[in-house]
């Protein structure tokens, strides 16, 4: 259902407050792309400052810029600027704020970056502890020997 953006609603500004206190003034249209924020507005109509407790200012800034500029070209270049840590934090932000386009873009980007990597690399990326016994791990490596060929060196 297409929303007609009337002049009145598009000029209304909202303030978003990041976890580290940084404030962002955004147009209502932009804020509405964040479904979590939309739900907040639906609940409390008169709100002017919305707290975003899970997202740092620097990431919120990137998210807002994404919403403003997103298109095929922008999305293709978007993920290249960020390191793996930032990509994950941006994904968590997009997830909390419920912005599906950005979530999809970031999931694809992270998948692309781990695609040809070793299990050790991936554990570091996601901070996962290896709870396989040495025998179990050896068994898996043997069973999927073909999947370990041509893997990038760490």
């Amino acid at each position, binding site marked *: 259902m297409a929303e007609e953006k009337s002049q009145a609603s598009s000029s209304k500004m909202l303030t978003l407050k990041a976890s580290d206190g940084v404030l962002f003034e955004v147009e209502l249209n932009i804020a509405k792309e964040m479904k979590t924020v939309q739900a907040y507005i639906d609940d409390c109509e008169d709100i002017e400052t919305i707290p975003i407790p899970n997202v740092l200012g620097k990431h919120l800034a990137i998210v807002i810029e994404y919403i403003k500029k997103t298109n095929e070209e922008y999305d293709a270049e978007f993920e290249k600027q960020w390191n793996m840590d930032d990509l994950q934090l941006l*994904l968590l932000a997009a997830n909390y704020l419920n912005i599906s386009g950005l979530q999809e873009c970031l999931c694809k980007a992270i998948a692309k970056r781990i695609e040809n990597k070793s299990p050790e690399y991936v554990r570091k990326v996601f901070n996962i502890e290896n709870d396989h016994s040495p025998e179990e791990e050896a068994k898996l490596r043997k069973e999927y020997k073909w999947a370990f060929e041509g893997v990038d060196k760490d």
Partner: protein
Amino acid sequence: MMEKSVTPTIMGKVSKHIPDDVLFSILSKLSLKSLKRFESVCKSWSLLFENPYFMRIYQDHIIHRNHSDHDDASIILRRIVQAPRELLISLYLVYGNNFENKVKLDTSLPSQELGQKIIIVGSVSINGILCLTSMVVEDRKVVLWNPATDELKVIPPSPVESVTPFRVFLPQIHGFGYDGVRDDYKVLRYVQFGQISVLDTLARGLSDEHVAWNEISYEPLWEIYSLRSNLWRKLDIKMPTLMVSFADVEIVRFYMDGMCHWWTQTSWSDDIDEASESYLVSFDVSNEVFFTTPMPDDSFDLGLVESHLVMLNGYIALISYYGETATFYISILGEIGVKESWTKLFIVGSLSTVERPIGAGKKGNILFLTKDDELVCFDLGTQKIVELGFEGDMCQMVIYKESLLSIRGIEN
């Protein structure tokens, strides 16, 4: 339904812990090869394929991911209908999410050049070009055709054809593909020779005096045609040849991502205990090398299981039909050349009316031929069947993307 966990914060710092539902979204976009490798990461990741929640997301990704072959593509269906004294071939352009729109193609089919039993080589058009030949092996002509511009090019005969009139030339096309390195279009074929019969010799008015019979070679060979050079060239290679099933009904030839694929089976030996083996053969069009991938062990048990290859959204897939339970399994190939990498990903129950798949379009829509020779579309996502109101017997399906590319323009 997994709960979304809220990232805890401590004094403005954010935790990097990724909740399962988000993690699954990332992992579902990985190749099968990487997913199998990452089973070593930790215990819970080794159980991904047994996790129904993850499997649903992964299946969804496979169904909806967009392989470029399907962008703006429709389907061309070649139908052969038996009329009283002839075969009627018609091509239909079929489009729409569930193949609901059919338009009969008015363009002139190359029946003059190829006769009536036209067959399209492969499973996709390549930059709008189709390669056609005749199902009758002795009608050896091959054409390249752009249906949108109606440009037709008859591929010249190979020098091998005219070495001597005293042997019968029996070509079998194995693939039509694109060489991305040289921007060239190639046709691959296997040529066998037969001895000409006495009757033929007489019929052709040939005199077999002075024929050096022992100098005539009947050695089969592989040759490849390049559009850029407009020449056939012999290939010094030994590859397993295409297995043609009964009555030419199902010839399994595919092209995808720079590789021509075909299905083959080593011949039955007289020893009943020695089972024949089925393979996928994959020919790299640029490098002109090949790979073989054995089929999974349970895929061709005589009488119990029937398997068919389809290209499913950029994956090589095996649809196995277990007659007893009328269930279909769909396995995806993880890595060419690796038998162990066939991975069962879909189970479809109770499709008792269908007989075999014709091909797959976008979004996991699989065209099936039913036992009543009708065509139906099976939506892998919703698992619903839609009747197309179309007879499907002797149907061939090709993914087609229109292009105004000139064939002559590529030829030097």
